[in-house]
């Protein structure tokens, strides 16, 4: 037998004093970590397959379980740390590309945490959102250059099919296939209740969810899975996915095991076949080509819906965004490198792309400089974690934000980053019916509605504190931001002053 180089990262510990041997942990673990030993007459755990999803910990009625880091250590080495060594062992054993899920866990700077928000004192009164009206509604799409009025002096609405959101937050693209039916249903139902949008991702739209159409963004990606006339007609907006923050420059690969009957029908591919999205769109090699697709899609829906173009935040994102703004797209969505994924090569996820804060600031600046900022709306995603991140993103120039990881957390995800294994114990990133049923969409959608409602309250509080009563007045209002612990270059790119300035 070959030497076992595998070493479990997490250790399940069980308080024998408290464990009542109810076997709930055993029944809930799809990784078969827990088992009842009739020989020992008690529960046992095999930590080797534990992914630290916390399902057993959350359901243990006696609070007897804890997952800790495996105290077994290799010799300290700042260069060859444990993760680096284990990666080599793994690849030397498998010969394969390392796969990971969700956003990068590497300790890159999070600029949101180095930006502070202003508040009113004395000279400009703050506003109490509980007593005074507060507008958090936004409209995405092309904005007119000038206000036009009719003979009676009333404003003429010249907005072209805008997407109207009650709060500048949307659930970003997660395909049916990468996430479960119940996860999709939770997102769709919550979006409808909240008056916002969710995004189908590239996996097509299940027939059951056509009824949420007015709150749905239908995505067209390089694989074109499930794209046909009815699909485009079903949504309220169409998104062309050029790239994804977690894996810029590469396509997608949904393993055949996840292509079960319903997913196969929705994606329009045979059951059990791998769903491979090519890295590029094979018909797009220039902004002109992109423009053709934008207008093909608009033509297909009779110019009744806005088209979003989603790109990953990469080094020359500003120039790319400028091109997209001229391609006829109504909205540009930019996904930062901390954004999540159902599966990506680890090295790509952890090393490719740039932070969304910097990408947003430079794109907004560039579009303003070119006088075309009103031609498109900007939506940013890639690790928006709370309402303060939303406020900072809006003040940096975004029209709205995309939230996906946060939404999955609301559904129960514990960021174990094992989506690619397809055995999600929370019923989110799996197609196994036994696991899928663990997410009751009634509970899931309620939790999503709670989350966004809570964020809305907080956004209103922060806006009120700044003396602002409309999200439009916060948009691109970088004077409301100050950097903390940032160097001159970073401040220049972000377009904000340092705290104290």
């Amino acid at each position: 037998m070959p030497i076992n180089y595998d070493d479990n990262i997490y250790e399940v510990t069980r308080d024998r004093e408290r464990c009542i041997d109810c076997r709930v942990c055993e029944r809930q673990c799809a990784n078969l970590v827990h088992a009842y030993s009739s020989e020992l007459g008690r529960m046992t755990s095999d930590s080797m397959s534990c992914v630290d999803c916390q399902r057993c910990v959350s359901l243990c009625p006696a609070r007897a379980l804890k997952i800790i880091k495996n105290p077994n250590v290799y010799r300290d080495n700042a260069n060859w740390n444990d993760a680096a060594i284990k990666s080599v062992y793994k690849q030397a054993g498998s010969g394969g590309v390392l796969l990971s899920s969700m956003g990068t866990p590497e300790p890159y700077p999070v600029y949101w945490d180095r930006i502070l928000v202003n508040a009113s004192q004395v000279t400009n009164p703050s506003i109490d959102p509980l007593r005074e009206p507060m507008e958090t509604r936004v409209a995405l799409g092309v904005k007119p250059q000038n206000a036009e009025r009719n003979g009676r002096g009333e404003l003429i609405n010249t907005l072209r099919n805008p997407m109207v959101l009650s709060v500048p937050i949307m659930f970003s693209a997660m395909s049916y296939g990468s996430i479960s039916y119940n996860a999709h249903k939770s997102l769709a139902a919550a979006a409808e209740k909240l008056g916002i949008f969710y995004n189908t991702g590239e996996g097509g739209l299940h027939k059951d969810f056509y009824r949420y159409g007015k709150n749905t963004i239908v995505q067209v990606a390089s694989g074109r899975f499930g794209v046909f006339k009815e699909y485009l007609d079903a949504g309220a907006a169409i998104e062309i996915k050029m790239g994804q923050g977690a894996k810029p420059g590469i396509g997608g690969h949904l393993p055949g095991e996840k292509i079960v009957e319903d997913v196969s029908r929705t994606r329009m591919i045979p059951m059990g076949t791998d769903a491979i999205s090519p890295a590029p769109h094979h018909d797009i090699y220039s902004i002109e080509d992109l423009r053709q697709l934008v207008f093909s899609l608009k033509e297909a829906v009779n110019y009744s819906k806005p088209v979003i173009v989603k790109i990953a935040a990469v080094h020359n994102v500003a120039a790319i965004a400028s091109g997209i703004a001229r391609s006829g797209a109504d909205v540009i969505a930019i996904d930062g490198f901390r954004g999540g994924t159902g599966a990506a090569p680890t090295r790509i996820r952890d090393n490719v792309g740039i932070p969304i804060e910097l990408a947003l600031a430079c794109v907004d600046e560039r579009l303003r400089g070119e006088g075309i900022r009103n031609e498109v709306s900007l939506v940013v995603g890639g690790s928006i974690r709370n309402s303060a991140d939303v406020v900072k993103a809006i003040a940096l120039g975004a029209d709205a934000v995309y939230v996906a990881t946060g939404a999955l957390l609301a559904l129960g995800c514990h960021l174990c980053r094992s989506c690619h294994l397809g055995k999600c114990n929370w019923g989110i990133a799996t197609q196994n019916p036994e696991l899928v049923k663990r997410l009751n969409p009634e509970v899931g959608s309620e939790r999503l509605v709670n989350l966004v409602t809570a964020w809305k309250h907080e956004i209103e509080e922060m806006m009120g504190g700044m003396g602002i009563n409309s999200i439009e007045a916060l948009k691109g209002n970088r004077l409301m931001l100050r950097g903390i612990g940032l160097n001159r270059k970073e401040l220049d790119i972000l377009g904000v002053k340092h705290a104290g300035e």
Partner: protein
Amino acid sequence: MKKIYVQEEWCLKCRLCEYICAYANSGFKDIAAALKDKPINTRITVEESGRISYAVSCRHCDEPSCVKSCISGALEKVDGVVKIDKDKCVGCFTCVLACPYGAIAAGEDGAAMKCELCVENSGGSPMCVKYCPNRAIILE
């Protein structure tokens, strides 16, 4: 009076309800003290076969067979809840035979044992409903 309903679609057969029920009716403050190395006296049972599972507890029937069958008058329906007076119960278990749902069992103390919607115990409201992780057991 509200009743407990089970939604088979959302039952995960985790059997948490069984243990929570036994704990709620144990009189102990601590769940480990109540259930560790002890027989589990539950008033709700998860029935399962293959992929199908659901929890079964007293239906608090409109015309309860158990109440009719009780030879000592220990079972009585009060405010929509079929209750058992343990002092009156003689342990003949005719009710166990009479219940069409198998929702009554012999308790540890020799008397029959059944769901009383946690109105008599420390819970106050059905604990299986409160602790079901997937809203598979509901009260409405």
